[in-house]
């Protein structure tokens, strides 16, 4: 073999080794799409062991849903507490409840996670219908997070109040998945739990706010570093009866869909559970009180009303690009 052939062979070998190293060590992107918590989950993870991390995140989400949070899942912790009017709280559920009680209190009752029976009367997701007024009033009288009695890890639930974590579960998923990501070697991740988003990594991410008036489009784009972004919109789940539209975000005071000019509220927070619960709370409270509530929690918020006006808290406004033609900032009209 002459010298040239030898060198050529060596070059090929090196290239081969380099290719093998590149494909085994290069960050991999893994995705998971699945249904849990009565919604659609879409996880994307980039980094070493992305496959393993994503299956752990998926398993954890399904466990959270079936074993702890879902009141529809027979045998879950919440289902058992509801059926037995209380019991002993697991450490995790106690942590969630503690932080949600804070939102109930600070929102002046605009947020409540004991409305299960009231929301059942509306039948969202099944056979939605406007409930009988008296029935609604009776159900409402029995509910209220302030009626819960919590002593250490014991909780007593008055008859008629039904724990329902529908307005915080997606955010809880984000927090639990973050715990998994923190303990791994991933470079970045985008976790969507039914439209509640966590962007994870050291770069800036772009998150669109869905067009509340339908279609697949978005009306504004947020550019944010690692954080959680949740939205509550009256367009998400609703039905129409006798020409009137009824959406699924109930005002705990009236038991009826929150009736203000808002159609979409987005809250940005490092905490998933807070971004999720606060987006609902701010929707119910309205622009002024909602803005104050978000500020109290150190969160940023974006409100959109039915006149295509966008109200943004000071800390996020400069990071918003409005892309929906009909929409504009309320203070720039």
């Amino acid at each position, binding site marked *: 073999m002459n010298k040239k052939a030898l060198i050529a062979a060596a070059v090929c070998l090196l290239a081969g080794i380099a290719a093998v190293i590149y494909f085994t060590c290069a960050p991999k992107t893994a995705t998971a799409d699945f249904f849990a918590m009565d919604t659609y989950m879409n996880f994307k993870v980039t980094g070493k062991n992305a496959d393993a991390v994503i299956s752990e995140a998926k398993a954890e989400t399904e466990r959270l849903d079936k074993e702890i949070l879902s009141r529809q899942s027979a045998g879950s912790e919440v289902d058992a507490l509801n059926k037995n009017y209380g019991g002993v709280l697991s450490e995790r559920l106690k942590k969630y409840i503690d932080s949600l009680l804070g939102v109930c209190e600070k929102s002046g009752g605009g947020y409540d996670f004991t409305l299960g029976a009231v929301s059942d009367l509306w039948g969202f997701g099944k056979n939605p219908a406007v409930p009988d007024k008296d029935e609604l009033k009776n159900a409402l009288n029995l509910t209220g997070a302030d009626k819960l009695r919590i002593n250490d890890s014991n909780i007593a639930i008055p008859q008629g109040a039904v724990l329902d974590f529908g307005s915080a579960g997606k955010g809880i998923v984000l927090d639990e998945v973050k715990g998994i990501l923190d303990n791994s070697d991933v470079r970045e991740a985008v976790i969507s739990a039914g439209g509640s988003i966590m*962007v994870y990594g050291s770069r800036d991410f772009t*998150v669109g706010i869905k067009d509340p008036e339908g279609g697949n489009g978005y009306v504004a784009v947020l550019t944010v570093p690692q954080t959680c972004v949740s939205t509550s919109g009256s367009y998400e789940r609703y039905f129409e009866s006798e020409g009137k539209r009824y959406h699924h975000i109930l005002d705990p005071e009236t038991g009826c869909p929150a009736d203000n000019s808002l159609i979409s509220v987005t809250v940005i927070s490092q905490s998933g559970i807070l971004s999720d619960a606060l987006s609902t709370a701010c929707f119910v409270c309205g622009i002024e009180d909602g803005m104050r509530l978000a500020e109290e929690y150190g969160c940023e918020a974006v409100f959109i009303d039915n006149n295509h006006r966008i109200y943004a808290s000071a800390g996020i406004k400069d990071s918003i690009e409005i892309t929906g033609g009909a929409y504009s900032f309320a203070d720039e009209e």
Partner: protein
Amino acid sequence: MKNKLFRKTDLIIILAVALAAVAFILWQRMGDTPLTAEISVNGKTVESVDLSKITDRVEIRPEGAENVLIVAEDGKIRFEASDCPDKLCVKQGELYRKGDTAVCLPEKTVITVTGAELDAVTY
């Protein structure tokens, strides 16, 4: 010539292979970002075209610059014709990569290709 380790052709082949490898890696990293062409007239965006969805020829006469004919086809976009005197815009040819820009100064019309893919949408 005989004692030379590599001939010119050898070097060219090695370079070509190396370039192909780099291109392949870059292409892999870029992923499948859908591209959007923004057409603006007089500084105002009048049309936004998702190039990733364009296959058949689409003709656009942008609002406010009706003398300009823009054609999107097969994931690319270009100034096809214009009433302007120098036709510089037409000469700029096809735009299809993020950052590609073509301008028709007399008609104040700009086409810019942006990577429009968001990381996520909240709802």
